[in-house]
Every structure is written in structure tokens, then in C-alpha cells.
């Protein structure tokens, strides 16, 4: 059911502002938009020795998108490009193929499990991960 998407853990995640805002010193950035709804996500990354050392997010989008950006930024520090892409792939598989949410560090992604049944909202959730992957790609990984 539609309203079940907005459970407390997801709403709390969407209100988490720890990593919200642009970075002043960064090595990678990307802005990705969803032309279907007009939402826009910008991800800034500081990178040290091939791994993310800081992340800043700016979301002009819905609660799902803001929560996804918070879930991403909560785990992104310390990841390299391969690990970030793997997390993005797990999220995509959760939504598109309804596979179980990952365990361990990415267990917060389980809050997005109900979104799997709402295809038109998948990209709301994947947009921050797309932006982060694109930022690393722009920086030459």
C-alpha cells in the first residue's frame, strides 16, 4: 500500500542532515536529474587514496530521495568506486528484482523494500547512488 512507504525509520532518515550541503573542498561531483519528475540530486565527494573521505549531498526531491541520500552518505566514507557501485547494484536489485535488502553496513537500505512495488518511484531512491557513481566516474574513478 502506498502509505506504507513512509514508515518512521524512512522519515527519520530523510530528516538526517549530517551530510547535507556542498563540500568546499572536493575531488568529484555530479548532478543527476530525473526528467520524469524534475528532481535533482548533487553529490560532492572528497577522495583520498582512491577512497571517499567526505560526502556532501543536495537533494531537490521527495522524501524517498532525501532518505536515500542520507542512507548513502551514512555509509559512503571509506568506500572505493567498486564498493560504491556494488552498493548501488544491491539497491537496484532490491527494487527491480525484489531481492532481499543487504545485510551489514547497508542494512538501512531495507527501509526501501516497500518501494519495490512502486516502479515509478524506483528512481527516486536510486538517484543519489547514480549521482555518486557518476561523480566518481567524472573524477576518473
Amino acid at each position, binding site marked *: *500500500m*502506498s502509505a506504507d512507504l*513512509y514508515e518512521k525509520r524512512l522519515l527519520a532518515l530523510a530528516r538526517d542532515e549530517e551530510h547535507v550541503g556542498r563540500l568546499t573542498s572536493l575531488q568529484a561531483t555530479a548532478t543527476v536529474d530525473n526528467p520524469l519528475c524534475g528532481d535533482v540530486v548533487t553529490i560532492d565527494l572528497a577522495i583520498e587514496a582512491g577512497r571517499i573521505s567526505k560526502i556532501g549531498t543536495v537533494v531537490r526531491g521527495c522524501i524517498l530521495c532525501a532518505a536515500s541520500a542520507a542512507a548513502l552518505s551514512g555509509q559512503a566514507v571509506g568506500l572505493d568506486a567498486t564498493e560504491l557501485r556494488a552498493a548501488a547494484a544491491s539497491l537496484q536489485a532490491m527494487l527491480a528484482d525484489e531481492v532481499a535488502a543487504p545485510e551489514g553496513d547497508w542494512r538501512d537500505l531495507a527501509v526501501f523494500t516497500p518501494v519495490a512495488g512502486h516502479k515509478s518511484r524506483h528512481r527516486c531512491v536510486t538517484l543519489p547512488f547514480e549521482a555518486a557513481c557518476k561523480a566518481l566516474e567524472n573524477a576518473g574513478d
Partner: protein
Amino acid sequence: MTSAENSRSPAGAARTFDVETIRAQFPILAREVNGTAFHYLDNAATTQVPQTVLDAIIDHETRSRANVLRGVHALAEAATKAYESARGDVARYIGAAPEEVVFTSGTTGSLNLLAHSFGERLGEGDEIVLSLLEHHSNIVPWQILRDRRGVTLKFLPVTAEGRIDTGALESLVTPRTRLISLGHVSNVTGAELDVGAVVEAARSVGALVALDGAQRAAHGAFDVQALGVDFYAFSSHKMFGPNGVGVLWGRAEALADLPPFHGGGEMIARVTPERSTYAEPPMRFEAGTPPIAQAVGLGAAVRWIEATDSDAIGTHLRGLTLRVIDGLAALGDRARLIGPGGSQSRYPVVSFVIDGAHPHDLCQVLDGHGVALRGGHHCAQPYMDHLGVTGTTRGSLALYNDESDLDALLNGLEDAIRRLT
């Protein structure tokens, strides 16, 4: 909201309106969604289809399915007759001659046809006037033309009330203006265009006028001659007909002046290896097999609308529209109406922004209440940029909507605000 400009109807058709009687004719309205009653308020995107239109399509496809115009067998004759009869229905509905009615794939198809064919004779320095309130389908085809032919696009501003600012016509329209192409009714704000002002400005410089009538066409018969415009585009699926067919009406002399858009069968007079000559309108613009069953369905939809009481429907929809507007006002500062606050010169499309709640989240929670709304930019990104928002939430009404739909909407909105903000 403007009452129907005329009250033409097919000979002998009874004109009645009772919302329960109307609702009973739409099978889909009886279904449940998410375990609750279904409240369909996304009519600006697509209207639902009455049983009589479904029956007409099924009857055609089960008894008369064949290609049109060329065949001499019985079914081909029947299909051609049904297709041309639908053209006649549409012509009657809009006060036009059948040969001025071109069947297309929809409003977008109509406007692309117009931009391509009308634009074929334009060049550097020629100007097209649009507005910031337009649907993308009345912007992008002209941008493609601009990139192809070097024409200049000018955009009328939008007033604080969400209307195209026709006061700016004087400064934007010049002797180089060739066409003014605007939405008759906004798909975001519901505001009705001051067509008279546009036509007057265009005629003062010898320019033509095209209207995107997608949001007007469902609301009763109208008269393109009285409007005084040159082209009018609309879609079947927003006026209780099937998807896949729409109309470009063109004043006879204006259509005759246009070169073809697509090439192929049916649109030619003669083809040789060296060159082709083209059929007269409307066939010149209907290359290939047209959407026959869809056109038959559109004809049935037109007849169905004509049999309703457009004045009573106008009163019904004005009342519902004002109740939505009042309901939003009751939410206080959290809600901002995007569009005219009254019921004059507007149609039942009501957009709004709720402070702190994204349109998609609102729509998702409302879906849980069985209420179908639309959230997002509504294919009007220039206007969203003008407003400084990524999107709005939109409820759009049709004649089958009733008070229970609005109860569900307004109660659902309160619940959504409580959950999301």
C-alpha cells in the same frame, strides 16, 4: 469556467446530466484501489472511457475491422464509412468542416505536424510567440523548428494568478511574427486564455494563431470559427475517448497552404520515381494506416459528450472546483494554490504546493486513500522554474467526479500533511 459556447447536439439526442447516472456509465469508477473506493482526479492526464465508447470500439473491431479508403470489400466500405463518420462527428463538435479535421496521434502529434509543416516556409528572423505556461508539447516542437530553420521563439510571461499575460502581446508581437501558439486552457493552473486578445494581436501583423486545446476539448462543444483562430489541436484520451488518436483542425485555407509532414500511402495524389504530388487536406496529413478504431471511439465520445447537458456540467464542475480551492485555503499557510482563485475563466484543474511536502510523496499517500492525483512538473518545466518549484500537486476534475471524491481528496491531504511534514 466558461459554459459551452454552443449547444449543438446530434439530431434527436437527449441532453441530460445527473452525476450518478454519468458515473454508472464508467465501469472503471466502480473498482476499488488499495482496498478502498476509487477517486479519479487525474483527468487532465487522461479521462476515463464510458461504456458506450468501449462498445463502439468493440463493435467496430468485431464487425467492421479493415483498412480504410482503398478496399472495395464490404468491411473496407464499413470501416471507411465509420472513420469518415467520426471525422464528421468531430467537425460538428468544433464547428468545422470535415475536410478541416486531420486525425493525428494526439495533441503532441498535431503540434509536431504543425511545427514541421508550418515551419517549412519560415526562416531566419521569423518569429513564433509561445508562453512560459505551455506544455512541453507546445514548446519542444518549436525549439526543434528553431534549430532547423533559425526562427526566433518569444515567450509571453505568466501572471501571478497563473494566466498567460496577454498584456505583453503588444511588446512581443512584431511584423516578423508568423504564428502565436498557446494553450487554450493551462494543464497546470486551469486558466483559460483570453483568445480574443491573442487573435487581435496576431491579425494586426498578419500572423496566424494556433491553440493547444487538450485541456478544453472535454468540456463541451465549441466553435473554432467563433474563436477566430487558425489551428486547434486536441487529444481523444482527454475527452473520454481512446488513446492513440487526436485532431489538428486547420482553417481550410491555412491547411491548404501547409506542405505534408509524413510521407507514405494515402497522402498522395500521384507518385512517380521522380516526384510525388500530394492529396488535398485532410488526407495530405494522414500518411499510412490511420488509427481507425480509435477514431471511431473518438466519434462515439464526441456524440456522448454532446448528449450531456454542458451547462449543468459546467455548474457542477465550478462548484467542485471552488470546493477544492476552499479546502486548500482551509489548510492555511501550508497550502499555496497555483492558479486562479475563483471560478471565472478557468477549468477544473487545480494545482497546489504544500509547504514541506513533495508532490510525489503527497500523491503516494493520497493513492493509499484511493485518490489518483498527479504530482510533478506536468510537462511544464519553464513554468515550474518560473515558480521556483520542482513540481506541484494537481487534482483535475471531470463530469463524473462528485463530492465523495473531494471528501477523499481533502481528508487524504490532511492525513498526508500529518504523515509527511
